[in-house]
């Protein structure tokens, strides 16, 4: 059985949102109807998107990584949103495993969105329907589109090729190999939803060691012989001084480039 899915490489996602906008462009022009935008030019617009990119800071300053994290429907193999649907509008295709909403059957009760732990579904207030990522089902099988372009719009748009698309049940597919060889993982696997989409984990750049080494020296406990009050002052002062130094260096590096530390590689993930 085929299970189409996306595999997203967090090493190269730069958080440019090209997948977000290309998804919106393709799907708002599709046969299933537009993705509405309420008050698009007003003070507080509300839009429907199938795909969003979020940004996380991981770790404690100064040892932080910025992770740009694109998320759309994960096309779970055990989708919790499907059995709860009272009308059968929400379904998983047997032929390719894509989870879809039949917009002719959906009554807009929103129960499926409560049942999705990933928040992958977005309700379209304008049309009174639940919507979600379709893996561009109206594009990937369209023979009027050149073969190489028959991929989800987000995959085509990604400038860093962070998004791979294919059959995760075919062990020889590009996506299966990527998952196998690069430690691809699913989101919240403990919930038993078995997401089809996978993520390739961030690998820390090897050259980021100097900063780590400096911070570790600063946090070392003072000699036992020193008076207690003095020791306390030292442990308080040392990391603060270090932090200020790191901040100024980082600011300098941002303004003028990392001229001091040539061992440090270019930051992965584009901050």
């Amino acid at each position, binding site marked *: 059985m085929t299970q189409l899915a996306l595999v997203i490489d967090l090493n190269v996602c730069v958080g440019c949102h090209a997948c977000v906008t290309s998804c919106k462009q393709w799907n708002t022009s599709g046969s299933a109807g537009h993705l509405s935008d309420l008050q698009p030019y007003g003070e507080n617009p509300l839009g429907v998107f199938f795909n969003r990119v979020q940004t996380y800071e*991981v770790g404690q300053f100064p040892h932080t990584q910025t992770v740009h994290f694109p998320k759309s429907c994960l096309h779970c193999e055990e989708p919790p949103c499907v059995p709860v649907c009272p009308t059968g509008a929400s379904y998983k295709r047997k032929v390719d495993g894509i989870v879809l909403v039949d917009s002719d059957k959906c009554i807009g009760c929103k129960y499926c969105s409560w049942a999705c732990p*990933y928040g992958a579904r977005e309700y379209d207030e304008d049309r*009174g329907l639940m919507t979600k990522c379709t893996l561009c089902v109206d594009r990937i099988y369209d023979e009027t589109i050149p073969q190489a372009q028959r991929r989800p719009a987000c995959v085509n748009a990604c400038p860093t090729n962070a998004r791979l698309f294919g059959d995760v049940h075919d062990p020889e597919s590009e996506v299966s190999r990527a998952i196998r060889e690069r430690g691809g993982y699913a989101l919240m696997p403990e919930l038993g939803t078995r997401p089809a989409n996978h993520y390739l984990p961030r690998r820390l750049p090897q050259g980021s060691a100097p900063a780590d080494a400096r911070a570790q020296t600063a946090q070392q406990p003072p000699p036992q012989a020193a008076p207690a009050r003095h020791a306390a002052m030292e442990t308080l002062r040392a990391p603060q001084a270090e932090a200020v130094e790191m901040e100024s260096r980082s600011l300098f590096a941002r303004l003028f480039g990392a001229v001091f530390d040539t061992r440090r590689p270019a930051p992965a993930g584009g901050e």
Partner: protein
Amino acid sequence: MRPAFSVLLLTTLVGCAQGLAVAVALPALWGVADPASWLTLWRISLWAILGMGVIGLGASFAHLGRPERAWRAAAMWRTSWLSREVIALPAFLGVAVLSLLALQQLGHWPALLAALLMACALALWVCTAMIYAGIRFLREWATPLTVVNFVLMGLASGGVLAASLAQWALASAAAPYGDAAAVLLALALFGRLAALLRLRHVSPAGSMQTAIGVASPIIRQTSKGFTARAFNTHEFFHGRSAAWVTGVRLSVLLLGFVLPMLLVLGTPQGLQDVTWPLALASNLAGIFAERWDFFAQVRHPQNRYYQAAL
């Protein structure tokens, strides 16, 4: 989660109607009731059940984005508790109509219809509660206490309503109904308190680490990826302060259970004409607030993706 007003109205009113149905059908089922004297109480109770049911049904339509397609919701009864509720609610109201017709034609309430009405009421409670208890990773809801509490709160509301109606239509039944209502209110209070105690040890399913697949214990969202509104930031956040939620929770306990109990048990017979309907109003307001809290208490796992202000 954001409480859905129409769902609060539906479950509060229909829960009370179900409780009333059980309260007035029991004497008919046991055959202890003398049909001639009970006829008025049965009749106005069934009309009250239908009235509340129809208002609840109307409210449920208001919850839908496409109410004209509501009939489709009966399709997936094999897998969906919501679909089962969509079948059980009209069935309950249908049996109430049949019972009303039987009272009109036969002058008594056939035991079979009374039993059927009670069965429908119980089935509807299970379906309604399982809509929430069945979502296994919404741990605030996924407990047998959810089902128990829907039943107990419905029975308590229905008991107070039955007592109030009996005051007017069958004075001899008022006192037993009042006593039963007080007991049911106490049981419902314990049920809700048990759920609140359980809530203290419930954490949302999954974890921040597995939500994005990063092992570090320190993860801070710096951007949710857009500056405007989204369905996900609206539907899954109630947007009220902790103080507001605490206030609602206290008012649930006081208005929903304690005050009605005091009014039902503690007022002299002459005043009960006034205080029992007051107890009902207080209880319904409290149950409505309880349903608000029932939604607001849920910390949806998806909220991990929407922590940042921007």
